[in-house]
C-alpha cells in the first residue's frame, strides 16, 4: 500500500534547515511519499541530498526528489521582486516538493508545470 503524506509549509516554517531536513527524511524513511507545500532553499536541497547519502544502508537506498514550480518563468520584474521579498520573509510556499523513498518511487519525471511519479513495481509494504 502506498502512503502519501501532505505537509503544509507551516510545519517546517519555523524550523532550522537542519531540523527541516531531519523531519522530511524521517517521514520518507517510513516508506511514505511526502508532498510538501512550497520548496526548500537551494542550499537545503543540496543538504538534503548530502544527508540522504549519509543515511543510505541496505534498507534505505536513497530518495527521488521533484519540485514543481509553476511561477518559475515569471517575466514581470515587479511581480518577481514582490515574490522574492515574500519568500525572504515567509519562506517559499509556491509550488510543491515531492520526496519519496527510492525503494517505493522509481522515477519522478518533471517539467516546469507537470510532475509524473512512477512507483517501483517490486515495492511491498
Amino acid at each position, binding site marked *: 500500500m502506498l502512503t502519501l503524506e501532505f505537509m503544509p509549509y507551516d510545519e517546517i516554517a519555523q524550523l532550522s534547515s537542519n531540523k527541516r531536513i531531519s523531519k522530511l527524511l524521517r517521514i520518507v524513511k517510513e516508506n511514505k511519499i511526502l508532498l510538501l507545500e512550497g520548496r526548500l532553499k*537551494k*542550499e537545503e536541497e543540496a543538504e538534503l*541530498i*548530502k544527508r*540522504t547519502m549519509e543515511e543510505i544502508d541496505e534498507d534505505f*537506498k536513497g530518495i527521488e526528489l521533484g519540485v514543481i514550480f509553476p511561477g518559475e518563468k515569471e517575466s514581470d520584474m515587479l511581480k518577481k521582486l514582490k515574490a522574492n521579498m515574500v519568500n525572504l520573509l515567509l519562506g517559499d510556499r509556491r509550488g510543491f516538493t515531492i520526496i519519496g523513498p527510492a525503494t517505493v518511487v522509481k522515477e519522478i519525471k*518533471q517539467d*516546469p508545470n507537470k510532475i509524473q511519479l512512477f512507483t517501483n513495481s517490486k515495492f511491498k509494504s
Partner: protein
Amino acid sequence: MITIMQKLFKRFFTDLFKKRKNLKMGLYGPPNGGKTTLANKICVDWLGEEMGSVSNVAHETREIQIKEQVIIKSNGKELAFNLVDTPGIATKIDYEEFLKVGIKEKEAKARAREATKGVIDSIKWLDDMDVVIIVLDSTKDPYTQVNITIVGNLQARDIPVLLVANKIDLRKSDIKKIQSAFPQYEVVGISAKQGNNMDDFYESLFKLTR
C-alpha cells in the same frame, strides 16, 4: 542585503586572488554524463596524459580527482587552471544495481559506500570552485531535480557555469532540450569520447573565465 554584501566581498577577493593562483575548474553533473571522459580529453590534449578511469557502470569516479596546472591555449591566449573531476551527484545509490552488471556482492556494497561518500564530497567541494562545467548526457532528459539543484546551488553561490551537452555523436542526442531547460547558460555540444567540437568548448572556457 547581507547576502549581496557577502557576494560582493567574495567576488572582490576572488578577483584579487584569481590573478595570483590557478582557477579551480570543477566538472559536475549526474553519474555517467561523461565528466571523466571530458577530463581525460582535456588532459590528453594539453598534458599528454589521462586523468582517471572511465566505464559504462555508474559511479566509476568515487573520489575527487585533481589535475594541477592545466594550461590551454587558443588564438594567442593562455588559460591556467586546476581541473577538479567530481563524482556524479545522485539522490539514490543501490548496491543491487552493481550486481546486475556482474560485480560481486561484497565489492558492490563497498562501491555503493564509496559512491555515497563521493556524492557528499562533490557537494562539499561546490564552495571551493571558481568556475564549473556541468557535463550532461545529451541523450537523456536534462530536466531532473539533481541537475536543477546543481544549477541552483551554483547560481546561489555566484559561480560562473558552462553547460556541456556531451555525447553529441549519438543518434538520440538533443542539445535543444538542454538549452530550453537552462536558457540562462551557454550550452556547448561536444563528444568528449570522439573529440568532436572541442575547439568551441575551449573557446567557451576562455569566455567563461574572462
